């Protein structure tokens, strides 16, 4: 077969195109005008029947020489046709239907030229080839039109998208200004609130500091003079007077320690109390505490054991002593018989100090209350009880020195308080 060309059947306009091209070719091949029209109609019908969107359908056109006579070959390839091709078959000299895979079908038609002596020249063939390939004006126009429409659609979509973007942008800008304004206002409010809080806190600290000073001054003379009278320096007292004045003396001292604890706490809370860090020996600090509590332990016939190694640490000596004093003092206060043992060990970068007693202990359900201010457990209220601030202050002091405090206890068996401080405060 001498192939002239292949027309792709891809839409209704290409079917019209195929029809027109075959009509022209038929005329050139000197088919009668009736036959040419009929050929064109069959082309149109067959093309339409094999066409399906999404499937590659085509019409291949060529010549074939059979018994020295040329004939026209049309090959329709596409979906299986549902046309009754009986009539069509009669028009051609030969018609074959070939199935190829995937539901594709090939209809091959052959029709002898009307003039047996017609031989297609090279020139004729190339001319027809060119005509078949060439897009018709209509097709060109449609192509341009389609492209144009696509472009217009794209432009339109872009435009809409742009507008949407613009809109979103505008809304965002508006939202942003709103948020900015809000943030600014909030920041100002926070700043103001912060300043007010700081001022209030400062006022509180100043108030507490001067208040406790003011309270202490008269208390100093209460304690001093009560002490003088109690000692009998201003004349002998009878036993009843001694006992009653002794109670007043105890209460005054209690009040003083309450004020002192309160002052310390207020200083820690306001951040006014800065640790005074320097090197000191904890064994020496321990001895000072032991000496000051020895009498208290002896009075209760308790064994007071200090086992602190000769280690120097960088911390606040006064606060270290205050912590140790509070805890050992508590241990002695809440222990009726047995012993109070203080032990220190070096662990990694820390020093661990344990204060163990054989005292009244703490019930499990009360553990959480222990380090809170003004909590005194019913069974721990003994004579000359604490301020209710002692452990709270101790915890605050430990934290001030970047340490932590913990407690283990068994009710009626004893308690162990452990505080852990870094050996080097700054380290």
């Amino acid at each position, binding site marked *: 077969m001498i192939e002239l060309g292949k027309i792709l059947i891809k839409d209704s306009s290409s079917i019209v195109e195929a029809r027109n091209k075959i009509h022209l070719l038929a005329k050139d091949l000197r088919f009668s005008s009736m036959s040419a029209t009929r050929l064109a109609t069959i082309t149109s019908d067959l093309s339409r029947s094999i066409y399906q969107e999404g499937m590659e359908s085509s019409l291949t056109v060529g010549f074939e020489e059979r018994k020295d006579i040329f004939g026209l070959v049309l090959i329709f390839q596409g979906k299986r046709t549902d046309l009754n091709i009986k009539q069509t078959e009669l028009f051609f000299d030969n018609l074959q239907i070939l199935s190829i895979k995937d539901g594709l079908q090939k209809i091959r038609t052959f029709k002898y030229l009307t003039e047996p002596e017609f031989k297609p020249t090279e020139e004729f063939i190339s001319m027809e080839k060119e005509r078949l390939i060439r897009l018709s004006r209509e097709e060109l126009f449609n192509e341009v039109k389609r492209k144009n429409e696509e472009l217009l659609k794209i432009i339109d979509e872009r435009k809409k998208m742009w507008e949407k973007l613009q809109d979103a942008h505008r809304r965002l800008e508006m939202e942003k200004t709103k948020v900015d304004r809000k943030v600014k206002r909030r920041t100002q409010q926070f700043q103001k609130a912060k300043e007010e809080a700081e001022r209030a806190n400062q006022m509180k600290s100043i108030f507490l500091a001067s208040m*406790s000073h003011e309270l*202490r001054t008269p208390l100093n003379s209460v304690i*001093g*003079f009560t*002490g*003088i009278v109690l000692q009998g*320096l201003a004349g002998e007292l009878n036993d009843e007077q001694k006992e009653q004045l002794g109670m007043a003396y105890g209460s005054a001292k209690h009040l003083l320690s309450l004020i*002192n604890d309160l*002052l310390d706490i207020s200083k820690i809370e306001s951040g006014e109390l800065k640790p005074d860090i320097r090197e000191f020996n904890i064994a020496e600090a321990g001895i000072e505490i032991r000496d000051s509590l020895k009498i208290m332990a002896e009075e209760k016939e308790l064994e007071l054991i200090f086992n602190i190694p000769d280690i120097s640490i960088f911390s606040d000596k006064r606060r270290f002593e205050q912590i140790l004093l509070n805890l050992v003092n508590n241990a002695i206060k809440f222990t009726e018989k047995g012993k109070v043992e203080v032990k220190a060990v070096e662990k990694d970068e820390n020093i661990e100090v344990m204060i163990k007693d054989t005292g009244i202990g703490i019930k499990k359900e009360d553990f959480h209350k222990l380090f809170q201010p003004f909590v005194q457990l019913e069974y721990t209220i003994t004579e000359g009880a604490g301020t209710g601030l002692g452990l709270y202050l101790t915890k605050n002091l430990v934290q001030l020195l970047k340490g932590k405090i913990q407690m283990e206890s068994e009710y009626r068996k004893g308690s162990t308080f452990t505080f852990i401080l870094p050996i080097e405060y700054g380290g």
Partner: protein
Amino acid sequence: MEREKILVVDDDKKNRYLVSFLLEKEGFEIIIATNGLERIEAAKKQQVDLIIMHIKMPKMNGYEATRRIRRLKKYKSIPIIALTSYAVMEDKEKVMKAGCTGYMSKPITPEIFTEEIKKFLEVKHEKSNSS
């Protein structure tokens, strides 16, 4: 033997009375001043054996007063004991730096107070005897 003289400086009348009462009971002679300036004047006028100084005072605080007294030739080595309240206990180093011999914190515990003062005087005697 002549009674030892102790200069007590305190702006609080009750405190002055308390300290003087305790020390007079022990047989000391008490000279009183109500502020730092007065004390310097008092110290200049007559030789005292020990000074008890309240740190927080109007007109001139204890630190400044101590420094000034230490400049006087006859007060180079006599004991100066600072009386500090709990609130300023952090300043104990400051007290020692200013030239104080020792410090005691308020409130005064009568049974301990006079004992402590006597100890400071004993140390002073030991020093003067050995020199």
